[in-house]
């Protein structure tokens, strides 16, 4: 192994360091000086420090050099990772903003710090091409998320969800590690491009196929794709709302990005095809199967839900299916289609969870409790409308263009029209998804609520965060080139 210049490492990881410092600072402050203060004060101070840290990190990312790398692919910065870093930081900032109004815990410092730590983990995850570091960062992220899920100590559901999440996560981490070790064994390297060089050959090793399946299981768990999704509904339902939103948004972006990195960089030669007639083994058919299964299962199961959170959980599974189509397409534009989709999805779903969090504080949880929301909180109702319609893929909201780019990429896949079956299935499932999204909106806008229901009081930070997210969803929908150009310029 080559010697690592620690100064260089420090310089490259300045944004991560800034975030960590902010997390430690707010943790210390909260545990010492602010201990006797009222909860609201502690939340605002912590959120302020966290936001400052995020902004500083964004500035540092923006100011840092365009490309850099450390030996063995341990730390690789490209313009694309800068973009994803900024997106992650913005999402973390909005998550913190939304969490300031929650009152479920008095461990304020730990909660906010964990959000920042998870973000640091994700930033490392994005910026590495080394299997070992990927695994470490992934576990770092997962552990933070387990804790965030189980953070509501007064709720049995929260503990149950966290435990299921943890058990499931541990199991799939085992599979992932197994798969990675197989890859290492086959190629003798833990650096993604080198693995690709080593495994290329005329025919595929059976062990490589097993490794592909195991890696797919490991990441399939992270992105909540069927049939590795079983933790998701319980975790989404049990977790504090903001944690659920964070899992559904930030962690999705990071996991999908690294999943795409691994399969396209390390397993490039072992792609295979998933055509209706010409089927060749490789990771593309595996992902196509997982995608199809996720779309069908997620969207159909969502119909039967009565809780808004579970509905969002199942819809997240369905969306994971759509995003996996972009993988399966495996064309030059599929990475930018995937990123556009996952980023806009993250915005809309964080927004939906934000609205949900605001409502749950007032005791609204089940879909039928939403009746008459339009009268009680017209602003929140309107934002929910935007988020859900974007998730359903109604133009001109960004969800529509996400689906459009993904489907367009899939139709360009080689051989020609081989993935048509997947796209047709996806379109059909979009139609199904419209049904349950509109069912929610019907409750919000059409069904009469109880006559004496008082107007809801929404905390200002939540309101700001939700409106910002809604504005982003609309703007990116009206001008998708804003985001797309950013990917392609870099």
């Amino acid at each position, binding site marked *: 192994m080559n010697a690592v210049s620690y100064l260089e490492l420090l310089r490259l990881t300045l944004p991560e360091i800034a975030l960590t410092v902010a997390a430690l600072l707010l943790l210390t402050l909260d545990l010492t000086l602010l201990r006797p203060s009222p909860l609201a004060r502690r939340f605002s101070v912590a959120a302020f420090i966290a936001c400052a840290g995020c902004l500083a990190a964004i500035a540092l990312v923006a100011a840092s050099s365009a490309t850099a790398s450390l030996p063995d692919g341990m730390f690789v910065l490209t313009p694309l990772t800068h973009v994803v870093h900024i997106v992650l930081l913005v999402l973390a900032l909005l998550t913190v903003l939304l969490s300031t109004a929650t009152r479920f815990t008095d461990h304020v410092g730990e909660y906010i710090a964990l959000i920042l730590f998870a973000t640091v983990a994700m930033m490392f995850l994005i910026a590495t091409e080394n299997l070992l570091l990927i695994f470490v960062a992934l576990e770092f992220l997962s552990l933070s998320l387990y804790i965030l899920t189980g953070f509501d100590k007064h709720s049995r559901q929260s503990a149950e969800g966290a435990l*299921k999440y943890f058990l499931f996560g541990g199991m799939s981490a085992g599979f992932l590690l197994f798969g990675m070790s197989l890859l290492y064994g086959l190629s003798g390297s833990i650096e993604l491009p080198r693995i690709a060089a080593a495994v290329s050959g005329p025919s595929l090793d059976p062990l490589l196929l097993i490794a592909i399946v195991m890696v797919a299981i490991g990441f399939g768990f992270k992105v909540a794709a069927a049939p*590795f999704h*079983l933790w998701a509904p319980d975790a989404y339902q049990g977790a504090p709302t903001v944690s659920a939103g964070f899992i559904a948004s930030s962690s999705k972006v990071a996991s999908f990005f690294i999943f795409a990195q691994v399969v396209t960089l390390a397993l490039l030669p072992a792609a295979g095809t998933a055509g209706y007639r010409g089927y060749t083994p490789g990771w593309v058919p*595996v992902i196509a*199967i997982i995608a199809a299964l996720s779309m069908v299962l997620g969207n159909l199961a969502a119909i039967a839900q009565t809780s808004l959170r579970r509905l969002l959980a199942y819809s997240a599974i369905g969306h994971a299916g759509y995003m996996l189509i972009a993988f399966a397409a495996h064309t030059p534009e599929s990475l930018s289609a995937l990123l556009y989709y996952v980023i806009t999805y993250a915005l809309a779903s964080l927004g939906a969870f934000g609205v949900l969090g605001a409502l749950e504080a007032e005791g609204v949880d089940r879909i039928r409790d939403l009746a008459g929301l339009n009268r009680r909180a017209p602003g929140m109702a309107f934002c929910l409308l935007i988020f859900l319609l974007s998730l359903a893929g109604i133009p001109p909201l960004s969800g529509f263009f996400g689906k459009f780019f993904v489907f367009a990429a899939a139709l360009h896949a080689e051989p020609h029209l081989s993935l048509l079956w997947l796209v047709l299935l996806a379109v059909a499932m979009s139609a199904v998804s419209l049904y349950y999204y509109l069912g929610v909106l019907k409750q919000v806008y059409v069904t009469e609520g109880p006559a004496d229901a008082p107007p809801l009081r929404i905390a200002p930070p939540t309101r700001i965060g939700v409106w910002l997210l809604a504005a982003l969803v609309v703007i990116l929908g009206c001008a998708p080139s804003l985001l797309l150009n950013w990917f392609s310029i870099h």
Partner: protein
Amino acid sequence: MSWIVRSLWLIPVLPMLAAGVSALLKREQRRLSASLAIGSMGISFVLALSAFAQALAEPARQVVNFGWMQFGNQWVSLGWLLDPLAAVMLVMVTLVGLLIFIYSLGYMAHDDNFTRFFCFLSLFAGAMLGVVIANSLLLLFMCWEVVGLTSYLLIGFWFQRPAAAAAAKKAFVTTRIGDLGLLIGMVWLYAQSGTLLFYDHGAGCLEQSALTTMAAHVTIAGMAVSTAIGLLIFCGAAGKSGQVPLHVWLPDAMEGPTPVSALIHAATMVAAGVYLVARVYPLMTHSALAVVAWVGAITAFFAACIAVAQNDIKRILAYSTVSQLGYMMLGLGVGSVAVGMFHLITHAFFKALLFLGAGSVIHGCSDEQDIRNMGGLRRFMPVTFLTYAAGMLALCGFPLFAGFWSKDEILHAAHGWGLSRGPFYLGAIGALLTAFYMTRQVFYVFFGPRRTTETRSEPVGSHHGPVHAAAEPHESPGVMTGPLVVLALFATLLGFVGTPAWPWFQSFLSGTPNSFDLARFNEPGLIPLMLSSSVLVFAGLLLGWWLYGREPILRGTDPDALQRLQPGIFHALANRLYVDEFFGLTVIALTRFASAFSSWLDRWIWGGAVRLVSFLTVGLGWLDAGVDRYLVNGGFDAGCRDLARGGRLFSSLQSGRVQNYLRVIAAALVVLAVLLLWGRRG
């Protein structure tokens, strides 16, 4: 260019602003509304005076044009102008307007909608002043239409009365018919000359180059284009100025409050038609002017006839106005701008005076308008009587009063007209009739004993609160008699600015130097003509006295003196020569028939087609609904049921038992691995 020319736009805009502010006021803010209206009018009057002074100092025409909006690469320009014609009109409109505004303070004092009244009145004044200073036919037309609108609003001011509402509608529709001609003429003018600016440094539509082109073009029946356009514009003028046959709205317009009748339907708006013809005078060819002259002469005679047999004090004045407007048109047709305009100005003063006097009488007699129920008011209302007498003498053309000079000049011009003597004779007989009907009116109203009101028909209006029917007639307050006195002075003396010996007004309008020269009376035919017209006036007065003044009229129910002599003629005249009935039988019947026919067409032919289509559609709809219900929906519902069942099945996978969850992973691993390995082999 002096400041007054540049800021000439202020004159119309100030009253309009006052109207806009008044429109926002509450009903109770009467004083503020009236002060706004009178204040803005006062400032406009002062500005108009300075404009007049400027025009005196520099008679050449000054224009200010500006681009209004762009179509393609063409600009539609608007602008205003100051020349002697506009200056004279400005002073007249602002002065008469100001006096009538002040008078309205007293006349409308008891009305609930005082604020609204002053709002409309100011809007009218602004628009009228806009007509006066417009240097673009388009701007003139816009203001013209606002004037028409305010006329409609003010005639129908007491819209609770069906007669007032109907009269407002009638006025609006009738003048719109004329306006249609004006609009077509305007569009045609634009098509021909490419501009609607009157004067634009040589490029305007009233300037030499455009006129030459238009005169050279020949359209249907050998008419020059400019003749046709001129006649179309004259249509608009005839509608506004109540020329036969579009005069029918003007007498009915007397349903409005009397100050409105005085301002709009005597002094200013109805004169706008005359002013329009004077403004586009360069466009009027000889043949167009001949039409104007004949229409004017016929109107002058015709309306004077009808006025003889009317019993409503305001209606008599209304027909008199129509008749005098005919004289003005005649003056324009046979003479020049100055001839017609001189009569316009003098008429504005004495007719406003007469209307306001009539208003004072009506006010003093508790809203009585029938002259048969008045009588002897001379004793009760001395100021009103004296001023009214001055106005009456001016209107009759009694020597040395204002009307004498202006009417005489028209008759002089008509006498010298080369084409025909017809208009002259019509005008002369009209003069006789004018003296006659005014004498009749004055004897009925002011002389003889006070006649009781037992024959009173319906009480007119409720705007003066509870009708104090039995009350003695009383003189009106100073705020009403003051304007009367001012107007009476003008009615008496204004004629001296345009006598043959010192034709200051005429030379001011035509821009020629002026001098005092008694020798002009020696012009052949002038003195005899003046004498004969005076004789006609005296004859009319005498005839009136003979019939109505010789022995006092004792009872209002007695038949009219003329009625006893010539019942047939009187009956025909009293019924306004059946013009309304004629329209009822022709134009309106035709319209009714056309509308009934259209309605039939619409109901049975088009409606039938629509119904057929709708039946077809409904039939198809039934068919479609059947297909939909039994074929499509059946399948779809089954599909949906399956989907929902699938959803429940999938969510039942979620048993909650973690062990099962983990087993799924293992199963997935096995299935996927087998699939890949099998695929590799095959």
